[in-house]
């Protein structure tokens, strides 16, 4: 703790971290009241990329809002499609054929690996290492090619439809995915040698940014940030949806509560996602990919509905209030990094600037998802 935190009349100066700053990965601005290099008070300021998705939801029909969901957290767009589609299917009571559920899980997990790879590259870039970013992007390109061959898009997929998926996979999708998994598995030890076991990185991440279990609960943090603090909470396990119960995978949990723990949780999650994809590809049933009588006009009976999915950054929940018409009456999008970032102010108090940036990197922020 710096001397300042004891007495108040010490002279501090204010620095603007952002909105244009290399380490904020988007237009997040944090007003830091600093004493030398120690942060006395950190106050994030949001809203620089606020587009009011929730108002757009109220003026569009159910299907027309689909492209919006992919543009909130564009790194894991498919989980957001999945969350929205789940809520509307729960509201309108639409069944989804088995094959479509499997395709959904496969593409969501592939997208999760791509999101974690990009986070890994950007995080080590924040800490000063340039090369791992390009190795991670090299792997991520393979995933984007695979997903492009089935969905047609590379980043903002609008691949899911109510009651199924947009189109079926062609026959060289499965071999390409399995080849990719074999390649990534062979490269993971290299990532661990180059970055995880590196003494400089360990010194940068160990005991940095402690988030206790109690603080995570008070702030509603979810996802890898929570699992880094020793809580075994993963919506795919705790609140099984779609066909996740049919796969056996485990949820990596670390109890050290520091940035290193959050880093290790995401690195292990990539392995688990690969296991899910392999099992899903093995058990992929035949059948059509969209329910026969998929209603063109969705009629959800009046009332409110809630569904949550496990996105790469935490629990993405959609609360829909429907009044029976063809467009939602109120659409609340619960974004995980919104709560994860809200604890930054409390944790960053008294930290050094580079450590605060290491903490921010370990929270894995995507600003358009926070601002919605």
């Amino acid at each position: 703790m710096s001397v300042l935190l004891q007495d108040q009349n010490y002279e501090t100066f204010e620095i603007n971290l952002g909105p244009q700053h290399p380490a904020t990965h988007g237009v997040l601005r944090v007003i830091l009241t600093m004493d030398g290099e120690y942060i006395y008070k950190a106050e994030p300021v949001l809203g620089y990329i606020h587009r009011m998705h929730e108002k757009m939801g109220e003026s569009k029909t159910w299907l027309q809002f689909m492209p919006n969901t992919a543009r909130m957290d564009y790194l894991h767009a498919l989980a957001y499609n999945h969350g929205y589609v789940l809520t509307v299917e729960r509201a309108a009571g639409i069944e989804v054929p088995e094959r479509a559920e499997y395709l959904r899980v496969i593409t969501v997990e592939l997208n999760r690996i791509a999101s974690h790879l990009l986070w890994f590259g950007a995080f080590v870039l924040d800490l000063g290492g340039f090369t791992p970013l390009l190795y991670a992007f090299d792997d991520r390109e393979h995933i984007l090619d695979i997903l492009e061959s089935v969905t047609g898009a590379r980043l903002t997929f609008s691949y899911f439809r109510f009651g199924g998926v947009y189109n079926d996979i062609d026959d060289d999708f499965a071999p390409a995915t399995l080849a990719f998994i074999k390649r990534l598995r062979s490269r993971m030890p290299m990532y661990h040698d180059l970055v995880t076991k590196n003494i400089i990185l360990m010194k940068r991440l160990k005991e940095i940014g402690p988030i206790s279990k109690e603080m995570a609960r008070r702030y509603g943090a979810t996802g890898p940030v929570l699992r880094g603090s020793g809580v075994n909470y993963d919506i795919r396990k705790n609140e099984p949806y779609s066909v996740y119960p049919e796969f056996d995978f485990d949820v990596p949990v670390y109890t050290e509560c520091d940035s290193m723990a959050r880093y290790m949780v995401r690195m292990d999650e990539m392995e688990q996602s690969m296991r899910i994809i392999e099992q899903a590809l093995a058990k992929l049933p035949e059948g059509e990919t969209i329910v026969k009588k998929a209603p063109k006009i969705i009629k959800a009976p009046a009332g409110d509905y809630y569904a949550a999915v496990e996105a790469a950054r935490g629990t993405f929940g959609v609360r829909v209030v429907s009044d029976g018409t063809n467009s939602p009456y109120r659409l609340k999008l619960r974004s995980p990094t919104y709560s994860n970032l809200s604890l930054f102010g409390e944790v960053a108090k008294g930290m050094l600037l580079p450590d605060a940036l290491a903490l921010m990197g370990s929270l894995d922020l995507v600003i358009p998802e926070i601002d919605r």
Partner: protein
Amino acid sequence: MILDNVKKAMAALEPINMAETDYAAKGFHLDVQVAPEQVMQAAEVLNEELFTLEAVTGVDLLTFAKAAKKPAKKTEEEAEPQEETEPEEKSAPQMEVVYDFSHWDELCRVVIRARIPRDTPEIPTISEVYSGANWHERETHDFFGIKFTGHPDLKPLLLPEDADFHPLLKDFVA
């Protein structure tokens, strides 16, 4: 098991309406509607049971009653209990604040609702108990103009600092 403790504790608060909903259809287990002043006690009850706050949502019910009442032609008639049977308030239109809670160890989602008059939207804050609610409440204030009494600093979060308009109100004109 946690659900029963919550139900017992909530019953002690005599909420206006408490219904156990079917999770598969609605997405949450318990739906409790409390008076605006009781929101803080409800939050404390859930805090003891180690619930975590997921989201705070504001809903402007100005045009909700009209659309919901004309029943859609052929949807099955399992109408929501509290929507239809409630004495249709021809009086002042209302706003609703919905708190979503979930639990780590057991799948148990609790929803707390509070209805407040639309022209004087005021409700006590729960940010002392759940500091995560600080931002959620500031955002709901931005979009609906609901004043959370006792909130540390209720200045706009997602809207520009000098924003005095509230976009998500149904009668908002851009």
